[in-house]
C-alpha cells in the first residue's frame, strides 16, 4: 500500500432526465467495478444514504442505482458549506449475462456493494480436450 494522500473531489452532478418530483440535487457516485469468475461487483460511494433508501433496478441491460439521502432533521444555520448534499444516481449498461434472481446488495458506512452473479452460460467454462 502506498502512502497516498487523498484529494478532495467536487461532486459531479448527474445529467437531468426530465424533471424531478422531489426538489434537490443529484450527483454521480464514484464507483469501482470489477469482475470475478462468478460475478460482476459494483462498489459505489454514497455517503448519507442508508440501506433502506437505495433502489436498484436491472431492466434488460440497463442497471440503475438510486440512493436517496435522508432529509436533515433539524434546521441549522449554515456557516460554511464546502460540499453539496443530494441524492445519487447512475446508470450502467451491463454487457454480461446476469442472474437477476441472485443479485445481492448491501450498504455499509455509506458504501454500496452490489454483486451481480453471472448467469450459468456466461461463466467461463473449461473445455477438456480429449486425446485418443
Amino acid at each position, binding site marked *: 500500500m502506498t502512502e497516498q494522500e487523498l484529494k478532495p473531489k467536487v461532486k459531479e452532478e448527474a445529467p437531468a432526465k426530465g424533471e424531478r418530483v422531489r426538489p434537490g440535487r443529484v450527483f454521480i457516485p464514484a464507483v469501482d467495478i470489477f469482475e470475478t469468475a462468478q460475478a460482476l461487483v459494483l462498489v459505489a460511494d454514497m455517503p448519507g444514504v442508508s440501506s433502506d433508501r437505495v433502489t436498484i433496478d436491472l431492466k434488460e441491460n440497463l442497471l440503475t442505482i438510486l440512493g436517496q439521502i435522508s432529509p436533515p432533521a433539524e434546521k441549522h444555520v449554515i456557516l460554511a458549506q464546502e*460540499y453539496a448534499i443530494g441524492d445519487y444516481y447512475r446508470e450502467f449498461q451491463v454487457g454480461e449475462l446476469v442472474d437477476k434472481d441472485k443479485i445481492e446488495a448491501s450498504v455499509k*458506512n455509506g458504501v454500496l456493494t452490489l454483486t451481480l452473479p453471472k448467469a450459468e452460460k456466461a461463466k467461463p467454462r473449461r473445455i477438456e480436450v480429449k486425446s485418443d
Partner: protein
Amino acid sequence: MPIFFERDPYQELDRIQRQMDALFQNVSGRERPYRREGVYPLVNISEDADHIYVQAELPGVKPEDLEITLKEQNLVLRGERKIPAEEKDVNYHRRERESGFFRRALRLPAQVDPNKVEASCQDGVLTITLAKPEEVKPRQISVKGA
C-alpha cells in the same frame, strides 16, 4: 515576522472566506463551488443555539481509522481511507474510488466547550457536535413592563 497582522492571519483569512461564502450564497442562492484545494475531507459547518456541527463525508472510513483532536478552537481530522484489496484474479473495469491518508485542520467559528464534544459516523457521514460554552449562548432577555 508578520508585523502587519495584529490577529492570527489564518483567522483573518477564514473570516474573509466566510464573508465571501455568505455573499455568494445571498446572490445565487446556492453554495459556492469548492475553491480550496488539496484538503480532504471537505466539511460543512453549521450551528444552532447550543451547538456547532462539523460534518464531513467519509464513505467507507471506519471509526477506528479516524482521529479527531481539538485544541482551543482548532479541530484536526485525520485518518485513513482503506479499500480492501480484492483477490488477485479479479479484472477491474472501473476504479474511481480512492484510498489514502488525510489530514484536515480547521478553525472553528466560535469557542466551544472542550468537555462536550461528540462525534458519530452514520452512513459514511461524520458529524462532530461541539457544545457552545454557556457564556456565548444566545440568551433571551425578557422585557419588563413598567
